[in-house]
């Protein structure tokens, strides 16, 4: 399936890309656009104002994905807290990892040429976070 979101991915969108590839759609392909009007036809939009899979109430898009796809994995719930704090910067969950993740992904944005490349690297970051938290949570 084709998934599409805005260019210039930060922690919420890169997290969603990993989540989609890892837990929702193993065949996922991604398109990154400048303006929602340029989104490819038939693509499932996420983290875009007005999309089903986007911010809602207090939630960031990663949290919305967990709800929409009923992903009850406690490790994913932990990651969603970190993504929330890094994305919305409201210290809702007081996750200390959020500051570090924010800095790492912002830095990667600066040195990597585009979102396809970026999400390749951030997949490994989230995979590592998942493995680490699995050790602590499960």
């Amino acid at each position, binding site marked *: 399936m084709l998934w599409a979101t805005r260019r*210039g991915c*930060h922690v919420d969108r890169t997290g969603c890309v990993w989540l989609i590839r890892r837990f929702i759609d193993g065949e996922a392909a991604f398109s990154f656009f400048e303006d929602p009007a340029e989104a490819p036809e038939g693509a499932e939009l996420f983290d875009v104002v007005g999309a089903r899979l986007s911010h*809602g109430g207090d939630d960031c898009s990663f949290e919305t994905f967990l709800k929409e796809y009923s992903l009850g994995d406690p490790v994913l719930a932990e990651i969603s807290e970190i993504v929330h704090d890094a994305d919305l910067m*409201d*210290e809702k969950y007081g996750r200390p990892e959020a500051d570090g993740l924010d800095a790492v992904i912002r830095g990667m944005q600066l040195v990597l040429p585009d979102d396809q490349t970026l999400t390749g690297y951030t997949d490994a970051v989230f995979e590592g976070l998942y493995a680490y938290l699995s050790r602590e949570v499960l």
Partner: protein
Amino acid sequence: MDVAVGTADKTRWLILIYHLPREPSRHRVAVWRKLKALGALYLQDGVAALPADAVTREQLEWLQLRVREAGGRATLWEAWPNTVAENQGLVAAFRAAREEGYRKVIAGAGRIRRKAELGGDEAPLLEGLARTERGFRAERRRDYFRSPLRTEAAQALRAARRTLVEGAEPTDREDVGQGG
């Protein structure tokens, strides 16, 4: 009298204009709190300004959505003040807001350092220091015009931490070996 000049000398600003129903008040509080956290400056009631960059733009877009979801109205604008002087006034107001925050950090760090020098129970001091450091990071995130007090605040925190950590007697801490 100041004269309007080209936009090159001016900051590009984002202006969120919003109106929320009076009740329930929690939405108004949530939006106000978020704008405060972002370091936005209220130009007047329901009109908040932030310097434009990718992060502030995105945060304000989500806030605009939030206002609409709560039954309010919100529009987001990109703007420049008409004159350089007006722009400087805005920048000065932003700097002043951050300096107030940094002064609190400097005072807090100084208090902790002095208490640490006197000895005494470390745990509450470390906790207080962590809180002050969090406060510093929050200020730094919204310090869009690099207040000169930023360096001073960072140094005060480093001095407090050094005093606390170096003054500490080695104890059988459980988390030894977790680092690296």
